[in-house]
């Protein structure tokens, strides 16, 4: 063995040892995480959707697991109420605040106030400069993956109905922008203008009637190839509308992975083409871990990505099941 090779081996061994010890250290701290005696404020814009409820639940469960006290606030989809809750929460001076989704334009000044009051702020699925850490899925990936799946299923050409009602919600902005970016490489795939608006509440009914109207407007088979939405509740309405109209050539695409949508994608006869399934419960839990680490004086990265899985017609049977099991385990439909 030459000297340089010896050196290399030594370096590798050292590196390996260092990696092991690092792993051991981070493993140990993960176990030692504690929120004993800490009060954590949690503010969610609403919990009427599967994703929201799972993340909200994940946060609360994890805070309790770590021995902390939760102040859990659900604004019931009312911006006014969320602002009032945040204002009162600031006065309550919790040890940290975790904020989950909402309109960034409305929230940002108030998130700033949280930081001004010296309260560490963590967010779930909400990219804002005021948060110490944002825990979310890699929406850049998700957006590109679901767009590419759609383009592939369409054979690289055709018209897409796009729901774009929530561009003010950061994750939807990313996914929509990624869709647009992917489509720059496929000029034969065109978004039908004007775009559709998804709404809350009555998301499913409204998506159903929107898509039905558009299909009536373009009655020739093949004139519409796909329906895209930045989440999967409009996808439910869209899929039902496509099937009711007998236009099975149209496939639907969405993001989140609500159990009923995963089941649709698993059903070979359903028009649901694919869904990017996230792990909202894990996302909620991970954000709490980040808060706990920060409060214990550890360094926390500005964002944490929790893995997501693209479930399509080919892999649905295998990839879908763990998500359905997780939903069942958490006791949320």
């Amino acid at each position: 063995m030459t000297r340089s090779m010896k050196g290399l081996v030594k370096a590798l061994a050292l590196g390996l040892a260092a990696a092991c010890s690092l792993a051991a250290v981070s493993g140990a701290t993960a176990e030692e995480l504690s929120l004993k005696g800490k009060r954590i404020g949690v503010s969610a814009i609403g919990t009427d959707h599967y994703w929201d409820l799972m993340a909200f639940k994940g946060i609360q469960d994890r805070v309790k697991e770590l021995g902390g006290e939760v102040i859990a606030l659900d604004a019931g989809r009312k911006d006014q109420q969320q602002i009032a809750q945040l204002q009162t929460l600031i006065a309550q001076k919790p040890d940290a605040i975790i904020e989950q989704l909402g309109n960034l334009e409305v929230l940002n000044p108030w998130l700033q106030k949280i930081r001004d009051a010296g309260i560490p702020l963590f967010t779930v699925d909400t990219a804002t400069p005021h948060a110490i850490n944002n825990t979310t899925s890699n929406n850049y990936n998700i957006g590109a993956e679901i767009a590419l799946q759609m383009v592939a299923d369409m054979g690289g050409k055709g018209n897409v109905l796009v729901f774009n009602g929530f561009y003010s919600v950061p994750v939807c902005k990313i996914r929509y922008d990624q869709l647009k970016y992917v489509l720059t490489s496929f000029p034969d795939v065109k978004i039908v203008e004007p775009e559709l608006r998804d709404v809350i509440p009555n998301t499913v009914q409204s998506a159903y009637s929107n898509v039905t109207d558009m299909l009536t407007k373009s009655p020739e088979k093949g004139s519409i190839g796909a329906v895209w939405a930045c989440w999967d509740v409009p996808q439910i309405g869209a899929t039902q509308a496509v099937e009711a109209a007998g236009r099975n050539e149209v496939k639907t695409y969405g993001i989140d992975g609500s159990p009923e949508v995963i089941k649709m994608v698993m059903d070979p006869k359903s028009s649901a083409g694919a869904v990017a399934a996230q792990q909202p419960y894990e996302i909620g839990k991970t954000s709490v871990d980040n808060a706990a680490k920060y409060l214990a004086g550890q360094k926390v990265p500005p964002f944490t990505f929790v893995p997501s899985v693209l479930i399509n017609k080919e892999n649905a049977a295998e990839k879908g099941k763990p998500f359905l099991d997780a939903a069942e385990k958490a006791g949320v439909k």
Partner: protein
Amino acid sequence: MSATVFHAEVGVSDEKQAAAKSARRRFGALVVRLGAIAAFAAIMAYFVIFAPGFTSTFNLINVVEQSAILGVLAYGMTAVIIGGGSNVTEGGIDLSIAANMGLCAAVYATLLSMGYGDFLSVIAAIAVGMAVGALNAVAVVGLGILPLLATLAVLNVAAGMELTLTQNTVVGASSPLLGLLVSGSFLGISALAWALIVFSAIMIVVVHGTSFGLRLYAVGGHPEAARAAGISVPFYVSFTYVLSGFCAAVASILTVSRLSASTPGSGELLLSVLAAALLGTVFSRRFVPTMGGTLLSVLFIGLLANGFQLLNVSSYWVNGVQGALILLVVAITSFARGSEGSR
């Protein structure tokens, strides 16, 4: 009209019986009314003792600030109920007020984002609010449609126009006026809280301190008598709907300042506005809506949400308690009015 005919036909002995009955009712109502006020007081006392930080000045100012938008809207609703009479099915009611606020907020934010200044945008928002109010007035006074139905229809018109304008999206807005409302403060009280204080003072003085207000009550309480006394009933009733539209416009500016944007979903406030205006009646001996009573119930609703949060009780309870209180108050009011209410 039918009521006067009915009263004229009632016999003398019937009247005596009715008087005795109504006296009993009145006593019963008094007991229940005081009970309701005691319940309010008890809830507040509980918060004062058990909710940490409840009585701090900072927290109380927060609550006043949080109540400003609801308060301004509730004054509009109260004026309509005073002028139209407080019979829940046939009397004055403005179901469009929250949707109107949403429309005004959309107009205001859209104009600001298009680069028009505060002056023009505020004038436009107020003009739109009052126009929607005038539409209500035409439907109720001009066409004689039941206020409940007329304003329900206008609610849909306003909500539809808001959707058309904003495409159901969030319209961000910033301006010097909004900046002042958000961060301005005087004597340690924030601008938004001042807005409620000043607006309340004006409403209380106008409705309870002037002959105009007295005539308004006459119009709502006894339209026939008011007409006989030479008061123009249609004018007063129309005025209340336009005033309600004005309140919606003022509230819209406060909303945009608080949310830094106009957002969909303003219609959700309607239930709280109705609750505030109806709950306010328990603070009046004759169970009529008053501006002071409305102010108290607006603050009560605000304190309820605040106290629950400080006690770490789920916010889901607030809706339930609010609903239960409305039921209680409506029950008391119809109980107190007795035969008059069930005509």
